[in-house]
């Protein structure tokens, strides 16, 4: 574990950027049709609950990384294996997000550039950042967050001003009963993006005031949920349900519709680039978690050096995990939640929490 401390505000910014990262660009919870926003909000509430679980675990072991406390809870060998699987899981998610962004860039702006090159450039910047450590990552987050806020506010005003919003697209609310919304929540939004905060278990030990973790985490998850829900509501009200569900990147399609004073049009490039910033932070946080976890697990003295090889692995993974984007989406919506998200985000942490709880109980009893 590197000797570094991040402040509560920095953690807040990182969680927010992480949550928004790739969830903003994708048609999130579109299975719930015009009730997507509701599914996102419900996912957010569930996500808050999941985060409380990670926070409780963190409070049992406030000074050490999860890769280490897993070994304390379920024994050395088993713990190491489990920790290793977690690292693979983080690396896989990082690769998935990189794929999302790479495809977005290829589709919208660089049709002739190979995906590999686009991703490779991003990886260079990510590796450079992770190499500099978590403090630098957090500080850069603080600065670039301002940029994202400015662009987001500008975008919102422009959409509003150009008169694109048609609230009737959002009606009727709950057309197909609550159960279909709940289904989307439980199969999708709960895990992506909210459950993915499991990676912050790797960052919480760096917090300078550990007791603030719960408040800050919940606040960030809440805010990001509201932002995501309103963005999705705006998308649907601008584009309508059918266009939103057919668009690969509905937010950019919405932005493309903006036309103000015959001067401000085709602004999707700017928004795409701003989204790249958010995606960059999501990937960096995941890569950092993998790097610091690997260093901790295999007791490597200089963790920053690991950024290069692991970055390369993620780059290659991002290109090879799916043969095309449809397959990539299919995997993401049907296989990943069941086989990866549910066990790694909910089942295992719950199991660990129970064991840790029992262990401390027994200690107190003695």
């Amino acid at each position, binding site marked *: 574990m590197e000797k570094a401390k991040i*402040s509560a*505000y*920095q953690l807040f910014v990182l969680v927010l950027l992480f949550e928004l990262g790739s969830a903003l660009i994708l048609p999130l919870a579109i299975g719930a049709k015009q009730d997507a926003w509701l599914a996102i909000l419900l996912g957010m509430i569930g996500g808050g609950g999941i985060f409380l679980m990670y926070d409780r675990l963190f409070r049992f072991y406030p000074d050490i990384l999860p890769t280490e406390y897993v070994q304390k809870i379920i024994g050395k060998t088993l713990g190491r294996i489990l920790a290793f699987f977690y690292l693979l899981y983080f690396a896989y998610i990082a690769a998935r997000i990189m794929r999302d962004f790479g495809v977005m*860039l290829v589709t919208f*702006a*660089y049709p002739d*550039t190979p995906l590999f090159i*686009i991703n490779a*450039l*991003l990886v*260079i*910047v990510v590796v*450079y*950042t992770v190499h*500099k*450590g978590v403090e*630098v*990552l*957090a*500080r*850069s987050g*603080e*600065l*670039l967050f301002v940029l994202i806020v400015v662009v987001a506010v500008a975008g919102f005003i422009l959409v509003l001003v150009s008169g694109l919003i048609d609230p009737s697209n959002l009606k009727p609310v709950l057309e197909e009963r609550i159960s279909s919304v709940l289904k989307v929540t439980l199969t999708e939004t709960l895990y992506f993006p909210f459950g993915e905060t499991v990676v912050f278990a790797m960052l919480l030990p760096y917090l300078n005031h550990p007791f603030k973790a719960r408040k800050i985490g919940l606040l960030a998850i809440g805010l990001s949920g509201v932002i995501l829900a309103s963005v999705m509501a705006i998308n649907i009200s601008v584009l309508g349900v059918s266009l939103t569900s057919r668009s690969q990147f509905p937010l950019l399609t919405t932005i493309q519709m903006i036309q103000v004073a*015959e*001067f401000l*049009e*085709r*602004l999707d*490039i*700017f928004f795409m*680039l*701003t989204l*790249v*910033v958010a995606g*960059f932070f999501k990937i960096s946080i995941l890569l950092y978690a993998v790097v610091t976890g690997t260093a901790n697990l295999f007791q490597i003295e200089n963790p920053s050096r690991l950024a290069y090889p692991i970055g390369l692995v993620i780059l290659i993974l991002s290109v090879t995990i799916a043969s095309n984007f449809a397959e990539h989406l299919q995997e993401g919506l049907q296989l990943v939640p069941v086989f990866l998200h549910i066990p790694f985000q909910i089942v295992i942490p719950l199991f660990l929490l129970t064991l840790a709880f029992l262990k401390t109980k027994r200690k107190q009893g003695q």
Partner: protein
Amino acid sequence: MLGFFKKRQKKKANGLNDKRHPEIDWLNTIDASLSINLEIIKEKTGNSPDVIIRELSMGLNDSVRTAIVYIEGMVDDQSIKDFLIESLMKNQNLQEKVTQQEPLGLLKKKAVPFGDVVTGREWDQLFSSLMAGEALIFIDGTAEVLIIDTRGGEKRAIEEPSSQVVVRGPRDGFTEDIRTNISLVRRRIRNPSLWVEPMKIGQTTKTEVAIMYINDVANEKVVKEVRRRLKQINVDSILESGYVEQLIEDQTFTTFPTLYHTERPDAVAGNLMEGRVAIFVDGTPFVLLAPAVFIQFFQSVEDYYTRFDLATALRFLRILIFFISLIAPAAYVAATTFHQEMIPTQLLITVAAQREAVPFPSFIEALLMEITFEILREAGIRMPRAVGSAISIVGAIVIGQAAVQAGIVSPAMVIIVSITAIASFATPSYSVAISARLIRFLFMVAAATFGFYGIILGIIMLTVHLCSLRSFGVPYMSPLAPFTLVNNSDTIIRAPWWAFWQRPRLISGENTVREGSRQKPRPPMNREMVSRSNEKGDSNE
């Protein structure tokens, strides 16, 4: 890889150390005999004509032989001639009293009308005093020397600084003389806690360097660190504060300055009050300030003298200017090469029509113009003043008219290059402007290969790089990142003076309180004050 280089460097450094002064091998303390001493001085200084040895005799029957040794030009001529020699030669009273016994003490007490007089007997000390401009008095038969502070000589008068010009504010600037510079700051902060620590750096040049800080305001750790880093310097010469800056900075591989340098005493005083440490180097008007933060380079001393709202607007303007000078050509290249669709149609048609005749891709065009401009600028700075105007005429023709008429570049490109150039001149700190100049080319390459994606990756990388820098342990981007709310009253915004409650927390030590409460000016509580004067009838009405 890096470790390997480090090892090699260490070896080199050791080799240098051993060989430095092979010939110096004299007896360490002086002799009692005057002639031997003078011989040694002549030998060591190579009989240089500017080393003046004035022999004279004192006492009854001229029995006591003495000599005054000083260096012409380094000493204050007036005081040597009018006071020192005069008092030694013409003082009748003294002449009678001086005998072979204890002449030194007597001279020191009665005859030498100077403030700072000490005795010494070691050659090292004597030579360093002599070279610094002090006069030595040797007396035959005494193995001790009087060292008299006669430092002076020609120096430039205090003038208006040429590098940081203000409309409103003091007009005095530092000179090349370290003692003048220190006094300029002391005149502004009249407080015994303003401490100055002198030291000599440079094995051969023995340059005077002084660190200055306010004892109960500056962070002790920073002061210690500055002291430690300065003491570690082991080079043969220090000719400008740039030498020191590059030897004590935190990170070498960056284009950004991690120490602030200024020619203005009011800037130094202001920064000392914020808890920074100033490093004065003799022989240069540029004083270093540590620790420096990035936002400081966008602030001008004048911001504090003008109204806060105007100053804030100007600071926003400067940030904008920095971004323009960084990415304007890159954005043009990206927009014309990759993202034509984002340019409004009408404008696109205009630009495309202009570009039709141009034989180069826009990246080459931009590169051509930028390099031409850099050449012009370099020529403008280095040429003698008289030739300068000729260059600006040629430049205007080359960049402006001829290049466009010849169809080599498009008029839009000329506009972009001009805006970039003006922007880079408008950055208040030259050292940041110059690093933006270099990074601009990297952005242009990124834009030419990957359009706006390249630019945004460049911006991310630049931000990460800036965030990774530190200056004497203080994060370079503070107080923006890590964000400290109280200290943001003086970053991009400049809060009114009554709201400057605290010194920058990361820079100054424990003592952060800057001003009393209720500093906000208030209008008179009741209108009586105004109406009373009316009653008396002393108004103009």
